[in-house]
């Protein structure tokens, strides 16, 4: 088991290094110069060159990458080219709102997906199944940039229940969490339905029923437990996706999270901030997936043996 875990951690480190390398190269290769954005057009070429030297942007790309790696090894993410604040401070400001939104979206997704998925599996091919799966289809199909304003129109403008946008108390978390959570709920409920349907035809379920156990006990204690494996994997993947993919939701709801910071930094060509944001998101993604793999291996020994 320990060999399997070490192998997973080693793979994760390689992936993270790959991400660091690719992001560094890409952000430096895209057209657009941070010095131009910072100084505007009125600055003299001498001033531009001085700033370029100060920022270390005059050095060859390989040397810049080497320095970046060296600083990274000392947990120094650098300084924002624009605000001059340490990048770590910027991230510390932005992580809580993003984590808050991610957790709330997960909560919304669980609360919707489990009842819907279980109901659809139990009432297969009946109207409840069709309704639940239609809801699921809508959840997947409606993009966040449409879902967000629709929810705002209904709950903020027409009903006046929630604020339109911003991060102003927990009440302001509701609509962004619903927007982000609905799509995840849609995917999860379909996965739960499919897994449950597969498990419900197994012999041990028939045995449990033959022993006289009620539906709730059969589903709760026997079927759901075994149907959870693929669902756990999906949730692991989706947490990473939520962290990275909340950009649109954050923009619509003016939520001061990592997504907004990433987009703004890309537009300003603020290299250190972009690199740090993507590194953070990808590292989280990799850690969650590695943990998922490890948990999966623990739950199902056949998986680690086959590798």
């Amino acid at each position, binding site marked *: 088991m320990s060999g399997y875990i070490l192998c997973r951690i080693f793979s994760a480190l390689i992936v993270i290094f790959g991400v660091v390398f690719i992001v560094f190269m890409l952000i430096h290769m895209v057209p657009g110069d941070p010095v131009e954005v910072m100084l505007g057009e009125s600055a003299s070429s001498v001033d531009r060159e001085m700033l370029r030297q100060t920022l270390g942007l005059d050095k060859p790309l390989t040397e810049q990458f080497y320095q970046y790696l060296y600083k990274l090894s000392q947990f120094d993410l650098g300084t924002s080219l624009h605000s001059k604040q340490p990048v770590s401070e910027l991230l510390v400001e932005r992580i809580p709102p993003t984590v808050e939104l991610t957790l709330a979206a997960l909560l919304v997704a669980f609360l919707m997906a489990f009842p819907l998925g279980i109901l659809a599996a139990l009432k297969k091919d009946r109207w409840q199944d069709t309704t639940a799966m239609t809801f699921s289809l809508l959840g997947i199909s409606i993009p966040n940039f449409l879902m967000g304003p629709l929810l705002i129109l209904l709950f903020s403008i027409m009903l006046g229940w929630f604020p339109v946008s911003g991060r102003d108390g927990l009440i302001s978390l509701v609509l962004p969490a619903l927007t982000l959570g609905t799509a995840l709920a849609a995917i999860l409920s379909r996965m739960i339905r499919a897994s449950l349907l597969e498990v419900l035809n197994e012999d041990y379920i028939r045995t449990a029923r033959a022993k006289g156990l009620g539906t709730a006990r059969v589903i*709760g204690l026997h079927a759901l437990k075994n149907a959870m494996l693929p669902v756990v994997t999906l949730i692991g993947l989706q947490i990473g996706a939520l962290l990275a993919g909340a950009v649109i939701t954050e923009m619509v709801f003016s939520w001061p999270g990592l997504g907004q910071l990433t987009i703004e930094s890309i537009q300003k060509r603020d290299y250190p901030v972009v690199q740090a944001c993507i590194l953070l998101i990808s590292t989280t993604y990799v850690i969650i997936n590695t943990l998922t793999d490890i948990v999966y291996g623990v739950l199902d020994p056949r998986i680690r043996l086959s590798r």
Partner: protein
Amino acid sequence: MLAQLFKRTFLAATPLVYSVLISALCIALLSCDSRQSQQAGAVIRLGISSAPVTLDPLQATDAVSSRIIRLIYQTLVEFGKDDRPIPGIASWQQLSLRHYRFTLIKKSVFHHGKPLTARDVKATYEAVLDKKTGSPQRNLLNHIERIEVPDDKTIDFYLSRNDPMFPAFLTIGIVPEDLLRQGHAFNNQPVGSGPFEFSRWPYDTELYLRRRSDAQEFELLTVKDPTIRVLKLLRGELDIIQNNLPPEHIRYLKQQAQIKFLSHSGSNYSYLGFNLQDKITSNLALRKAIAHALDKQKIIYYALGNAAHNARGFFPETHWLGADLKAWDYNPQKALKIMRALGYSEQNRLHLSYKTSSDPFRIRIATIIQSQLKKVWIDVDIRSYDWGTFYGDIKKGKFQLYSLTWVGIRTADIFRYVFHSHSLPPAGANRGRLSDKIVDQLIEQAETEADLNRQAVLYRRLQKYLNTLLAYIPLWYEDNIVFYRQNITGYQLSSDGNYDGLINTIRVSNRSTIKDKTE
């Protein structure tokens, strides 16, 4: 516990409703701790479309930062209604061609309690001139040879060349000398002497300022999406929004009873630019055809919600340097005639590329221009890029057509910067690569003219000549428009769209605001 939960789940008659109810329950529980209800009505909120980058007057280049900096800091010089420089906190005398004396005429105190003196002015401008500061303003002021301070109220500027327009460049916010020496972080903890003092900046999208006269707090909240900004205004989460709204939003807001609005003609100049080194767009006849093919009035009416004025040149006619320029009127027949003379026809159409940013409004304008040019046998290929890429391409001359807007242009140095042959990027903003001896001569002649009125005559002559060259096709000056809730009064607009209106803005009654928010 788990079994009970599932039992309840399955036994529920309408599980669909059940899931919604649980979500609503959790939401209600989460909502108990709302801060908003505690703060409703206390702060006046201005919605802005992009966050300020820095609050350091020595470093700011973007419009939003500059507008906020104006509230926090004071400047030696301001601009009057016709955009002539007028005294800010100092009046001036030109003692010789290269010697200006400024005298502080207003007693001012910095927000940290120290009085503003001539030494603070000297320290500020010396910091701008110091290469280590890396101020983007340095290039404009690098003809300051030295600064002397005979007493606490007097500052002498000695120049290395004649510059009758020199006072117009002294619009940088004055920072306190003591904090400057200590390396204070003005970018996120500004200390000025203006009517507003910095309160807090918890996120770059939420900036709080306090008005010194009555301690009224203001929040400048960044809401990028114009639709969301409008919805927040309607619901009372914002009190004021200004500019950057699509025409349909402007029309909609004008119909809302609880919203008031003001508009003011603006000075921000939108134009269509050409690459004058490109073998196709360098042809003056073609540029004339394009100028005649554009129906600007229709674009202004339909795409800008009639919130713009037709432009003929860099400066509006109300500007003291504004010239009476010939209009390139809409005349598609004339355009077709020119195109025919150039050898094009319905079958043999011209293909041009048009670069623009990825801003939806700019793409919409590009699409309309594409449609109008199609009628004169020009097929336009629109290429939209994110701002960094677009701006980079424009500066490198990788374009045939593009459109941009000059914001906050008030002084005649813009002509050297944009049209002189020595101002090719990165040395300037001659993006179209215009190289014309007469233009260069007129600019140089005007710059060396010591008398302001004679200088104005030369600049007007230059504008007329530039208008015949069509290096730019002037499009429009977008109006400034502000929408605010009924309980807000005192806000006033200016031609450059600054936020100075906040100085006199008050909420009529806090009680009515809370009522508004709960309704």
